[in-house]
């Protein structure tokens, strides 16, 4: 112990070797981000869409969840996710020109229309018990996607009824009540939802884009302020900002309206949050020490939303000078997340209930495919430098 080589050199070197080793394993493992290509991402999205439409039921509903280990379909369904899946199929049809996806989205829309409840001047799809703001918002977006793709005003009345439902549910501070009970015809005044405001924000923005003279932007601005300034506190988000990809879509849609500083500040913080999550996910290998320290990979309905969010924020950064300095970094992180999605998808030559899907612990849920599809499509567009989200008609 007294020899100077030991005291002065060996011990500090040993100490720091241990510390650096721990830092490498716990904080900074390798981030495994390959350079995926737009074509690869679009192919992956098409395979995921095929899972959705090949397994669609005759009534227009989708396979909600599938357990490949037991070959079982849990008895559950979710209208909000049905609307989201339908939206993603219209996106595949619009951006990738896939007719099978369009047909499936039309059947999904018919299912939603069959389940509409109307009161006064508003309406929304119900699960039999209630009408949720999230369902109405995502159905609005799905129909807006269809309108952008086809140019048809076929569902304009339904879009307006859905928008009026969101207006009825909106609070004075710009937030939202969550649902309306069909049996009692009462609003739920107690529960809150972290993500419904972001969904409504995008939906209201899409309504204003579709019907610019009807004042939907007023509601959208109120929602934008709520989401960027109040929502995280109201929802007691422990580490704000909430990773809300819907809000990212909304603000990207509103970019040309002229956002306020609080909106772009929020967008910057949101990009950092998605980036942190994607980096963390890219460090996982699902084996050995990584599994112990980092845990399992997240399901693609989580990873996909982060990629969606980054792709949307990239579009926003292309339109708003205040975010131009982070544009390249945002797109690079979106690419990293999209590559992770492409790597984890079940490949071809598998049964129809597996090919094109993402499984965690042998279970896939329809929104695993939905969020991955949207993230992959818009990341591919970003890598091609396409800042416009809407389809080319």
């Amino acid at each position, binding site marked *: 112990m007294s020899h*100077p080589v030991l*005291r*002065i*050199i060996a*011990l*500090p*070197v040993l*100490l*720091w070797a241990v*510390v*650096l080793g721990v*830092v*490498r394993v716990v*904080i*900074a493992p*390798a*981030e*495994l*981000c390959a350079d995926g290509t737009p074509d690869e991402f679009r192919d992956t999205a098409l395979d995921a869409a095929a899972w959705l439409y090949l397994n669609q039921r005759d009534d227009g509903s989708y396979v909600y969840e599938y357990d490949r280990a037991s070959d079982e379909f849990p008895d559950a369904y979710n209208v909000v996710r049905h609307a989201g899946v339908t939206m993603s199929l219209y996106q595949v049809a619009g951006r990738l020109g896939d007719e099978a996806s369009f047909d499936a989205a039309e059947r999904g829309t018919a299912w939603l229309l069959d389940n509409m409840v109307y009161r006064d001047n508003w309406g929304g799809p119900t699960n039999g018990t209630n009408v949720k703001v999230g369902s109405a918002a995502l159905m609005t977006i799905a129909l807006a996607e269809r309108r952008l793709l086809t140019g048809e005003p076929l569902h304009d009345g339904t879009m307006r009824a859905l928008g009026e439902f969101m207006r009825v549910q909106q609070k004075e501070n710009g937030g939202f009540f969550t649902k309306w009970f069909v049996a009692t015809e009462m609003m739920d005044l107690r529960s809150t939802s972290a993500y419904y405001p972001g969904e409504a924000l995008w939906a209201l923005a899409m309504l204003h884009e579709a019907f610019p003279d009807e004042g939907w932007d007023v509601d959208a601005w109120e929602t934008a302020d709520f989401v960027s300034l109040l929502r995280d506190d109201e929802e007691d988000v422990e580490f704000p900002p909430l990773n809300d990809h819907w809000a990212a879509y909304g603000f990207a849609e509103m970019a040309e309206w002229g956002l306020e500083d609080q909106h772009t500040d929020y967008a910057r*913080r949101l*990009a*950092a949050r998605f*980036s*942190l999550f994607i*980096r963390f996910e890219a*460090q996982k290998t699902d084996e050995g020490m990584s599994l112990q320290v980092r845990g399992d990979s997240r399901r693609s309905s989580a990873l996909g939303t982060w990629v969606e969010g980054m792709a949307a924020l990239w579009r926003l950064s292309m339109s708003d000078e205040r975010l131009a300095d*982070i544009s390249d*970094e*945002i797109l690079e*992180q979106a690419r990293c997340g999209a590559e992770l999605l492409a790597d984890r998808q079940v490949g071809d030559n598998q049964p129809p209930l597996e090919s094109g899907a993402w499984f965690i612990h042998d279970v896939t849920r329809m929104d695993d495919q939905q969020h991955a599809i949207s993230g992959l499509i818009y990341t591919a567009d970003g890598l091609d430098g396409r800042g416009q989200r809407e389809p080319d008609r």
Partner: protein
Amino acid sequence: MTLITLLLVLNLAAVAVIWRGYRDWQARDDALRVGTVVAGAALAGLVAAISVGESVLDALDISDATFRIAAGAIVVFGALQAFLGIGLRHELASRAWLIVASLVWLLAPPGVVVAVAIALDDGVGTAVGVALVAVAVALTGAAWTVLMGERYELAVGLLRRTIAAGAVFGGVDLIRQGVLSI
């Protein structure tokens, strides 16, 4: 903030503690000669780290943002080490060992990672300039406290702990930067 953090992690008072372990100081010129050698070697080491830092991060598949979080953790650990004085007290029998002990401290991971973080943010030129200033401040401060004599032992210890506490904040700020980076 990161520039100040480099000054804090090199911790002139910690260097002073090492230098006070050498009992055969003869004159001001003696300190100047040792200081010049240590400064040259430390600066060369930091410049080398700054030059290859980005390549090493690429080879290890570590993004800049994650590196900042890791660097912050390393700085916090180094600050705790300096605060507690772990590995700082040596009875140094020769100038050669004095130089080696000084370099082991100055080229420890906290200084290296902060210098690399500065290079990632502000470029290699700025990082080299800041490293030059930080090394000069650390060694000048250390020489000054040594030449002040034994009666300032308590003051040097307090200064070391105060600077180390400041370095903790520097490390936390690096972690914050990493979390908020894209």
